[in-house]
Every structure is written in C-alpha cells, then in structure tokens.
C-alpha cells in the first residue's frame, strides 16, 4: 500500500501539494519526523522560498543527513528539487549533494523577467517512467529564479533563454522544477507516475 509523506519544511506550497495528492486519492501525511519519513513508501520534498532557509529547516530536524540515505522513491518539487543537488547559488548554499550540480540564477533579459513564471513546455530527453502519458511540448507551470543546467540525469528540459532541467532522476531520487500540483493534466500525470514507482 502506498504510504506517502510530504516533508514539512515551511514551504508555501505544502497545502497545494497535499490537495493534488488528495485528488489522486492519496492522503499524504505532513511530517518532519525522520522515522516517519523512513517508513513511507514515497517521500515528497516540496519547497517554496530561499535555499538557505530551507536547508537550515531540514538541518534543524536532522533531515539533511536522513534524506540522502532514503531508498524509496523521493520527489523534490521546485526548490525541493534544487535541494537534491550539491549547491545553490542562492545565498551560496550547500545542499543535499544527492545529485551533481549547482542551481544558478537566471540572467534577466529584455522580455525575460526573473522569476521565470508561467506555463512553459517540457521536452523529454530520455526515457523515464515519470514521463508516461506525457508528450513533447506538454505545458507545465513554473515559478522560479534559479535553475539547474541540463545534465546526464535530466529527464526533460524546459527553455527560458537557455534549456534547463525541468525533470530529473537518478536512482530513487527524482525532481520537478515546475509545480505539478498546479500544472493541470501534465502535473497530475507526473504525480501519478511518481506514486506508481515501486517502493
């Protein structure tokens, strides 16, 4: 049986993520308890806000050491995805170091304000069960100022000025830079695909 926890980390989108899971018939528990997180079949790390604050809140509960040891499917959303990487240029913050790379700030340009905010298209770059039912060009809803460059772990890209990582995966760790909880059909698919990953 699927037992989903959402890591409580002070982010503003926690309610929205839980409501989205609710629409998929899953009642996710909100917790920062390490044992509870270890017992779950699926773990979601949401996040809206600043990288340094988020890492400090994780560390306050010892979760900066717990999360990298998890063996069940983990999904980081937005800032939660960025935290899975080595570091963020936002406050020059060391992150969880599960995936190689550093989140860098978008360069502002005429017609390309930062934060990048709005509906933008996904381009799959390699096969993944997370992409089941998603097609190239499907739209997802993004709100972010920092992004990860494309790497071998990138599953799908999005382009804002330059391509960046929109969906990432390595082993049991996954991430979505966009907000699946607010991305209509594409987001619902991604969440359902994540929940279908074997624990």
């Amino acid at each position, binding site marked *: 049986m699927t037992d989903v926890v959402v890591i409580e980390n002070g982010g503003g989108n926690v*309610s929205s993520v839980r409501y989205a899971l609710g629409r998929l018939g899953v009642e996710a528990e909100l917790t920062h308890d390490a044992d509870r997180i270890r017992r779950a079949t699926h773990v979601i790390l949401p996040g809206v806000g600043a990288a340094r604050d988020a890492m400090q809140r994780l560390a306050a509960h010892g979760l900066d050491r717990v999360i990298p040891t998890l063996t069940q499917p983990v999904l980081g959303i937005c800032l939660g995805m960025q935290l899975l990487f080595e570091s963020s240029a936002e406050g020059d913050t060391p992150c969880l170091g599960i995936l190689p790379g550093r989140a860098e700030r978008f360069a502002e340009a005429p017609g390309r304000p930062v934060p990048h*905010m709005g509906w933008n298209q996904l381009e799959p770059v390699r096969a993944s069960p997370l992409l089941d039912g998603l097609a190239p060009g499907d739209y997802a809803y993004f709100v972010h100022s920092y992004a990860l460059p494309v790497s071998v772990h990138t599953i799908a890209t999005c382009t804002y000025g330059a391509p960046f990582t929109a969906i990432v995966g390595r082993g049991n760790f996954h991430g979505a830079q966009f907000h699946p*909880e*607010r991305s209509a059909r594409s987001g*619902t698919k991604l969440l359902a695909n994540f929940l279908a990953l074997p624990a």
Partner: protein
Amino acid sequence: MRFRDHRVVGDILELATRYRDAGADELVFYDITASPDGRTVDRSWVTRIARILDIPFCVAGGIRSVAEAEAVLAAGAEKISVNSPALNDPELVSRLSERFGAQCVVVGIDSQTVVRDGETRFEVYQYTGDPDRTRSTARSTLDWVREVQERGAGEIVLNCMASDGVRQGYDLAQLEAVRAVCRVPLIASGGAGAPEHFRDVFARAHVDGALAASVFHLGTIEIGELKRWLRSQGIEVRP
C-alpha cells in the same frame, strides 16, 4: 458608471471547476467590494478552491497586511493581488515581496486616460469596487508601474477602466505604453468582447496574459475554442 451593478455569477466552486475544465491557465478571484467596505477578503472559500483547482490562482481584495496575505497563501493560493491598499501604503508591496517573494505579489492597477492641465495622460483610480467612492488618485499610471516594480511586484494586472465591461476590445494604446515601462509579466484586463481582442492584445501590446470575466461568465466566448483560434492566428497558448 460601468462598474455599477456587478453581476452575481453563480457558485464560485462550480465556476472554478468549469474554467479549470475549459482550459483556463490561471484564475483570479476578486472580492472587489472588500476594500471600499474596509473589510478583508473572506477566506473560507480559498481552501475549498485550492482543493479542486490544478491550475494556479490568485486572490485579490482587501489584503492590507503581510498577515492577511500569509493566510491566503497558506490556504493554497499561489498569488495575492493588491490594489487600493497598495495605493494607501506603497510600502506594503515591499513588505509582501520581501516576505513571500516577487512571484507571489501581483499589483492590480485601475487606470484611465484623463486630460489634466491640457495634457493627456493615464491616471490610477482607487476604490473602483464602489461606484460612489471611485476616485482618481492623480497618480500617473506609468510612474506607479515603475514604483511597484522597484518595490518588488512580480506581476502587474492593468485594468483599463474605460474599456472594462463594454467589450469593445482592450485599450491597446494604454497597454502598449505600460508595456514599455513594465519588465515584469503584464496582464491586460478590461474590454475583451471578441476573440480578435485577445489576438490583438497579445500581438500588438505584447502582454503576457489576457484577463477576461464577463465574456466567459456569460458564455459569449468558450475558452477552449478561443485558445484553438488563437493558435490558428499564430499566438502561442497552452492547449
């Protein structure tokens, strides 16, 4: 006054569901009487909306403090929009942006063309939810657009009052002028009456989004059909 006699438009959840299913990209919930009445937006419905919507939504109306904004965001809204309270207390925009980030903070501006001292310019209006209290602030719209960006607004919704509710098209001249000084996303509001109006506002005023109410509420324009038509006209929209 075109702002008189606001129509009552059915149950809010039913409407939200209808627009979600029709392919709306974002919904804005206005409690336009909140500021004139000196009360804050009733939030009991925000959570109910957040549970059913899988698209972003924004709540506007009477948000005058960081605490009021926090409650709305915690209930599941992506963004909060401030209008009259920001005019009374411009520092509010700065406080909201510092606390929640620019991406959460929308500034709504009601504006119209006026002739003042023989000069034609755009001026910001306040309390437009109440016809008896609606008044010009004598503020230049373009200056206000610049100021709120400096203060950390992440998005601007420009409601061109003379066009609003009359469905004769967006005020392209005013939107173009605001676009020229607006580097954050700009949403056009007021005047949509036909599919061509949406095409023109994207193609000519280069706005990031087009907001409309009455044509959708009344069923004059169907969102799915509108988007298909816009794509056929070369405007990039989410299917």
